[in-house]
């Protein structure tokens, strides 16, 4: 880790990032079994056929992070996580609409 003034260049997660299952687990500090459960529930939709080939987009990463926090903090089960995420996204969409109209 550096403490300096050199300019750091990041990558935009939502556009340039494609994570393997190991990477997404690390980013969310969550066990693989949760990721498997969320994929089969349709919470996350990775590309690739088998789980060794799965590639998660940045959008999936965002959903997985919220899901991980909901599981950790509120002990939600998989269908609960799926429902909460869909509702949160709907609220976010409505808020955006409201904001662009006022």
């Amino acid at each position, binding site marked *: 880790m550096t403490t300096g*003034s050199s*300019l*750091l260049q*990041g990558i935009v*997660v939502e556009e340039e990032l494609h994570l393997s299952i190991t990477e997404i687990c690390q980013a969310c500090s969550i066990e693989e079994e949760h990721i498997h459960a969320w994929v089969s529930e349709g919470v996350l939709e990775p590309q690739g056929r088998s789980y060794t080939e799965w590639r998660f987009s*940045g959008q999936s990463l965002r959903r997985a992070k919220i899901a991980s926090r909901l599981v950790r903090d509120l002990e939600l089960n998989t269908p609960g996580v799926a429902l909460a995420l869909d509702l949160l996204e709907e609220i976010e969409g409505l808020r955006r609409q409201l904001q662009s109209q006022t």
Partner: protein
Amino acid sequence: MEYQDYYKILGVERGASPEEIKQAYRKLARKYHPDVSKEADAEKRFKEIGEAYAVLKDAEKKAAYDQMGSNWSQGQGFTPPPNWDSGYEFRGDGNSQDHSEFFESIFGQRAARGEARNTQFNLPGEDHHAKIEIDLRDSYLGAERSISLTMPTMDPNGRMRMQARTLEVKIPQGIRSGQHLRLAGQGSPGFGSGKAGDLYLEIAIKTDPIFKIDGKDVHVDLALSPWEAALGSSVALPTPTGKVELNIPPNTMAGKKLRLKGKGIPGKDPGDLYAVIRLVTPAANTDAEKEAYKTMSQVFTFNPRENMQGYSS
């Protein structure tokens, strides 16, 4: 250091059962969860609640906490008595940066010593998360931002220390609100030969008084006088990167959106900028102004309430 009254934070009596504690925690956690709640201090409250529950749900921690007695009040100055915690064993639970100084002094150091024993293993470092606010203009042009973060780092003796550091970060052109930048290797260092974690920066674009952002498109209200709208004109339109001359075609109606293609947030597939037309009518004060309105009323056959015809009053 301030005493934390964990019972008061969860709103339960000192003699509350584990079931009651859990129920109180769940209720508050749902209310203040930062992913769900829009309360202004949600994040702070949620951390307090989490810390209180981490102690009160754990029989060992609760016993150690209860042993300090109930004569303290929330926020009171606090110094732990010597050897107060002998005979209790705690495990570290990861998110130590989120805990109060009070919690750290009681449960933190033992937790850190516990982690230090793991140094012979190779573990990747934790990822870190932070939020950064930028102006819309920064997204249009790209920018460099200096951000200050306080991060837990491991000192050579294996103890967690909070360390302030400043990073210079390039904000790429075209980044949108809610997107994240990943800075590889800028999280916690790994243990052994484990690689360092990453730093994730969430981008938030400040709300602007005139520009409204919708994904990669940007909307701006443009007020016109009736004659500018009816006769057509050329007006100066502010954009996030400066003014442009906008041609208003004759008979432009209120609510019409004039699209400036590709003038939204830039990128491979750039967004558009929309000027949303609003009509502003002047008050008639002088005789000449009143005369002008009268002339209009004589010249036009115009019923602004056409859509209300057929409704009786």
